């Protein structure tokens, strides 16, 4: 490797907000009062919060310096498996900041909000087309929120049919949110083992499916990056037993325009607009987790729903079987605008996005085979999962290698997930990365594997190039200091 992407440069220290400032400074342009002051009852008034007073320049420098301690997709490759860290188009930010959209009040009369309502209506149609399902709600604010919504729909479906089913089947490869969402809805999660091929077998599902089971929650493609190839048979077994099939669409980026969730026998699924549809992850949100359902489950979707009456869009509450409301208003519209802009920019190129995402993942899988252990050595979808088995002999762990990748200028992959792979390294390059970048990533991984053999101390000490070194996480949890 000639020169590593990772380099060091001048990074500035920056104290906490309240460690600076001086009483009387201000970074805010306060309007000149145009009415008389009207004092509030003394018994009600407090002393005001103890915030620092800062000038505008103080605030600008503070957050600019903080931003420089961060790594984002705009900085470089961010192959965080299961999170689909693809490029977030700049034009989407422009659209979301249009005053007509960003300054709109949610309780405006519908006649005065036709622009947003039309957008919501159209986006629902597009998402239905992409998934092969019939009806969509945009209300859930995140993937986990979508899961909760989906589980409530499953519950409402059974209740409506007069049956109270209490269990949900969840494969051992599932995200932690799946059992947590099922439990939050009052269901008992029942784990199902995936087979030696890394996928669910119809036999394993049939063995646990019974009359107390409300349905199954499957991530497809699953978190090993493998397509659940028996999904139709599994759906048949679950349906025959009176259950519903829920798909966690976290990995939809692999199959847009390629596979139809509707044809697979899926009844309910959620999408992550911040993964598949390019809206920014924002350092941990806001995202959006729309839920798509087959036709006969539409009555259970959250209200209000956008309905077209003649040429006009209205917000209808008239769905008596609805599970209710999951969000104070209609969901994360600011995020929804960005996803809508992305879909309009892409059209049928969405299929190409999935093809290139899968191409990139398989390219990395092929080029790193032998460098890292591949627990499931077969073609993958949009991500590939390795382990640290080869490096075990040098006492080097997945964590050490992940930390070392930072020194080479890459965000580490997802590590130690899925739980079925010991020391998992889950790489999702997305379609945004070029062949040159992938080659550079592969070279960095190979160099690290060599270091593990020759000089593992480089890995144990890593990272050394970022502003911060490894943190004492035990101390943080033992004596929590959560506010200054």
């Amino acid at each position, binding site marked *: 490797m000639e020169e590593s992407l990772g380099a060091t440069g001048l990074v500035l220290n920056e104290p*906490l907000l309240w460690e600076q400032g001086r009483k009387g400074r201000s970074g*805010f*342009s*306060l309007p000149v009062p145009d*009415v*008389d002051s009207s004092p*509030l009852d003394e018994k*009600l*008034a407090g002393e005001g919060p103890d*915030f*620092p007073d800062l000038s*505008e320049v103080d*605030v600008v420098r*503070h957050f600019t310096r903080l*931003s420089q*301690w961060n790594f984002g997709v705009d900085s470089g490759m961010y192959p965080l498996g299961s999170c689909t860290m693809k490029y977030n188009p700049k*034009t989407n930010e422009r659209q979301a900041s249009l005053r007509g*959209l960003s*300054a*709109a009040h*949610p*309780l*405006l009369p519908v006649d005065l909000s036709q*622009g947003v309502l*039309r957008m919501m209506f159209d986006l629902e149609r597009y998402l239905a087309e992409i998934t092969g399902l019939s009806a969509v709600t945009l209300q859930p*604010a*995140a993937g986990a929120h979508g899961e909760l919504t989906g589980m409530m729909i499953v519950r409402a479906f059974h209740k409506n049919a007069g049956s109270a089913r209490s269990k949900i089947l969840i494969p051992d490869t599932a995200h932690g949110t799946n059992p*947590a969402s*099922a439990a*939050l*809805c009052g269901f008992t999660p029942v784990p199902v083992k995936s087979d030696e091929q890394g996928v669910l077998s119809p036999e394993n599902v049939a063995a646990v499916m019974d009359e107390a089971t409300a349905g199954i929650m499957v991530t497809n493609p699953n978190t090993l990056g*493998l*397509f659940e190839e028996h999904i139709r048979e599994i759906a048949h077994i679950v349906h025959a037993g009176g259950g519903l099939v829920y798909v966690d669409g976290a990995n939809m980026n692999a199959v847009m*325009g390629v596979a139809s969730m509707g044809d697979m026998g899926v009844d309910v699924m959620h999408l992550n607009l911040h993964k598949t549809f390019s809206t920014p*992850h*924002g*350092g941990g949100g*806001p*995202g959006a987790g729309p839920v798509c359902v087959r036709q006969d489950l539409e009555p259970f979707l959250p209200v209000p729903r956008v309905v077209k009456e003649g040429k006009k869009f209205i917000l209808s509450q008239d769905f008596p079987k609805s599970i*209710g409301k999951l*969000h104070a*208003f209609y969901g994360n519209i600011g995020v929804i605008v960005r996803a809508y802009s992305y879909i*309009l*920019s892409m*059209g049928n190129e969405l299929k190409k996005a999935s093809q290139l995402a*899968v*191409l990139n993942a*398989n*390219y990395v899988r092929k080029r790193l085979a032998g460098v890292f252990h591949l627990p499931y050595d077969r073609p993958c979808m949009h991500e590939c999962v390795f382990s640290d088995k080869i490096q075990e002999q040098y006492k080097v762990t997945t964590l050490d290698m992940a*930390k070392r990748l930072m020194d080479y200028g890459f965000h580490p992959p997802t590590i130690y997930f899925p739980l079925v792979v010991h020391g998992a390294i889950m790489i999702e390059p997305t*379609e945004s990365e070029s062949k040159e970048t992938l080659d550079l990533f592969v070279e960095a991984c190979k160099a690290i594997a060599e270091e593990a053999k020759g000089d593992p101390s480089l890995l144990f000490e890593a990272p050394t190039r970022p502003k911060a070194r*490894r*943190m*004492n*996480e035990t101390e*943080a*949890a033992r004596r*929590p200091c959560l*506010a*200054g």
Partner: protein
Amino acid sequence: MRYFPHTEEDIREMLQEIGLNSLDDLFAAIPKDCRLERELDLPSPLTEWELNAHMDALAEDMAVSPAYKVFLGAGSYNHFIPEVARQLLLRGEFYTAYTPYQPEISQGTLQAIYEYQTLTSRLLGMDVANASMYDGASALAEALLMAIRVTKRKRVAVSRLVHPLYRRVVQTYLTAPGYEVVELPFLENGTTDLSGIDDLEECAAVAIQSPNFFGCIEDLEHQGRVVHSDPNTLFVTVFTEPLAYGLLKSPGALGADVACGEGQSLGIPQSFGGPGLGMFAARQKFVRSMPGRLVGRTTDRNGKRGFVLTLATREQHIRRERATSNICSNHGLCALAATMYMACVGGTGIRDLAQLNHDKAEYLKNGLRNVGATVPFATPTFNEFVVRFGAGLEKAHAGLLEKKIVAGLPVFPFLPELPDHYLLCVTETNTRQDMDALIKEVGSWKNL
């Protein structure tokens, strides 16, 4: 497509490396009967120019200020957002990062969240705040679920003056696992009536909003004492307008165990109701039962101060079905915006700004009263208040829309017992001139 870096040659070379002939071959694992055998039926891709024109047209089909004079609050507030906050938020290192799982290269996000948690705790007078939740409604629902876990009781009491849309979200969250929500009525003065609670020892929590849905400032201190007559019942306070706490006594100072609500007012665009900022703060003793992410202070190997996600054993990725919540993210960028906003206004500024909101609302309230409108609730308000116009004036009220005045929210659809009542909001963005215009219009109505 400009978002794809791949040339035809790249694709050929990569397929060759993998040992395949075509992109279609990559999907061999997908059985035929799961395939989509046609093209997606989506509109043709738009160029950046075309997209701009299309989105401009949608945005123009909306009523926003300054073209419209909007006196709407009720959980979404039109406050001025400094350009500083808007531009800093667009730094790619912030908005294109994800959850700070790797603290060494996420210190920007982590320190900012720690600052958010701190300023939130100070604003609300509480010990700890989490890294934020989806919105005010889900924050309240999560607070009530926490109270149910902590007390092992199955019922909660929620004031009817908690935002009606929040109450519906609470209903949805709590009904699914089989818990009970009872509603507390309100008094003639526009505040919550606690006198009917006779089974406090059955209640996991009592939730009261202040300023409440009518804009009225509740006597939280008194209510807290009533709620704590059973020391195990949690007193949960809710807000939709956090700016009020620039001026009012904080919920923590008045006895709240949990203070939660919506933070949109703090530098976040209204965006037709979302994304917002679910603020959640509690007393120290509840920290290990709290939902949501937490950032804690620690040191790195060089002994330097740093920040990490902490107390993760409460969370779904470790605890799975036994987690304190299924939430796996926060509203990070909104929390960052709020931090920037609180840093800009500062301690002096937030008080002045809150006072100005109060003063302007008083001006409109008095102005409308002077021309004959009724102010039905005598309790002091912050920047929202209810007025009652005479029966049969719905048309006149709706007619103001043609003059581009949105004169508050009809309360009737939310609380059917209150026909002819309207909830109006005034912030620093509403001018005296606009208020005078509204007062003049209302003054011209007959049968007021």
